[in-house]
């Protein structure tokens, strides 16, 4: 089989591989069945490199690079797993848990949470940095959905799906650093938003219990973001 025009050849974890032009390291790695942990990435949405879990080593680069936003270059040598990377991913995970109030046992997303299961996958048994225990608010003003800042990891999936797929751009991020938070419209109660179409896409793509549907408990509280690649494909074919 001949390579596609412009295909990039590179080495990933010591194995020769190829990528299409513009393909990210993450996308190419997954095609080669190489696991790179992610939380902010979601198939069907643009990537922003927010969660830092997908950091990889690229030979010659002076720092670690996020696999989700770094495109494969000809001759690149990528390492997706090393003791150093495992350490960084553990630390990133711990920082995510320590930053806000992630109390799995009483969370609406318990057992349906990508952050919780990723902690298990990465082997996190405890958090070494001090928990911050910030006082954060819950916005239940929307008729059907609730926003709980306590569980938000600022992955911005909600922001991206609302802007890229729904086209409403109700969600955005306000503030800087530790003060950052997701907001609806001009930082007003979600229920008063004039742009929100109540489509619920943000709820379905949220990896944690930060966005959830009211009156959904137990086994019915799982989320299903599988509509995304489907919508993308349908629109591209039009």
């Amino acid at each position, binding site marked *: 089989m001949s390579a596609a025009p412009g295909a990039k050849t590179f080495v990933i974890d010591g194995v020769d591989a190829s990528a299409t032009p513009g393909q990210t390291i993450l996308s190419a790695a997954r095609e080669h069945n190489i696991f790179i942990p992610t939380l902010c990435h979601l198939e069907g949405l643009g990537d922003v490199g927010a969660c830092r879990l997908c950091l990889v080593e690229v030979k010659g680069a002076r720092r670690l690079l996020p696999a989700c936003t770094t495109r494969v270059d000809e001759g690149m040598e990528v390492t997706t797993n090393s003791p150093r990377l495992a350490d960084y991913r553990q630390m990133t995970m711990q920082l995510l848990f320590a930053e806000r109030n992630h109390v*799995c*046992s009483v969370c609406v997303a*318990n057992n349906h949470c990508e952050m919780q299961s990723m902690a*298990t996958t990465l082997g996190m*048994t405890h958090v070494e940095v001090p928990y911050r*225990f910030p*006082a954060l608010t819950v916005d239940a003003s929307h008729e059907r959905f609730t926003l709980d800042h306590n569980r938000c990891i600022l992955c911005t999936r909600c922001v991206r799906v609302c802007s890229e797929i729904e086209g409403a751009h109700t969600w955005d991020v306000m503030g800087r650093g530790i003060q950052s938070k997701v907001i609806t419209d001009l930082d007003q109660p979600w229920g008063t938003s004039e742009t929100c179409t109540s489509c619920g896409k943000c709820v379905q793509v949220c990896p944690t219990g930060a966005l959830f549907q009211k009156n959904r408990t137990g086994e019915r509280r799982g989320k299903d973001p599988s509509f995304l690649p489907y919508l993308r494909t349908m629109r591209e074919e039009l």
Partner: protein
Amino acid sequence: MSEKKTLATVWLDGCSGCHMSLLDMDERLITLSSQFDLVYSPLVDQKIFPAHVDITLVEGAIGNTEDLEKIHMIRERTRILVALGDCAITGNVSALRNACGAEAMLRRVYGESAHGPAQNATGKMQDIFVQLPRLFERVQPLHDYVSIDAFVPGCPPTADTIHFALSELLAGRVPDLSGVAKFG
């Protein structure tokens, strides 16, 4: 057959759910029990924590002055100290009050929503309950105060998880639950 190990279990700022889960091992507990002597636990009538214990499982977080005294004493007297469950490891439900602080929590629970001497109290709530251990402003996990040898997450950890951890401990190994145990 090697000598029996001594085992202690402790209940600090938690709900006793981890101890319930320990009992949930059912008949497996009987099998395991041939390998240890339970020398201190809320499940047995023993008032004094022994001078030397091989393995201590601690449920619950550090929420008040008594918890803190106990955990330091337990650490000194224990060879392998295990943080059992999410409260011991993260603060969990016990630490839900951290965002508002001890005083606000006491006022809400024992003042506004209860009948009694504290209902219309004007001063600090903590000063009314002087006979009780003083609450810290923040509930914290065990490893913020003492070194921990093994972590067994879960709210509660399942009976299977505790069985695995205890079996490993009794076999002289430190249980490694990374990649297996989950929070919540």
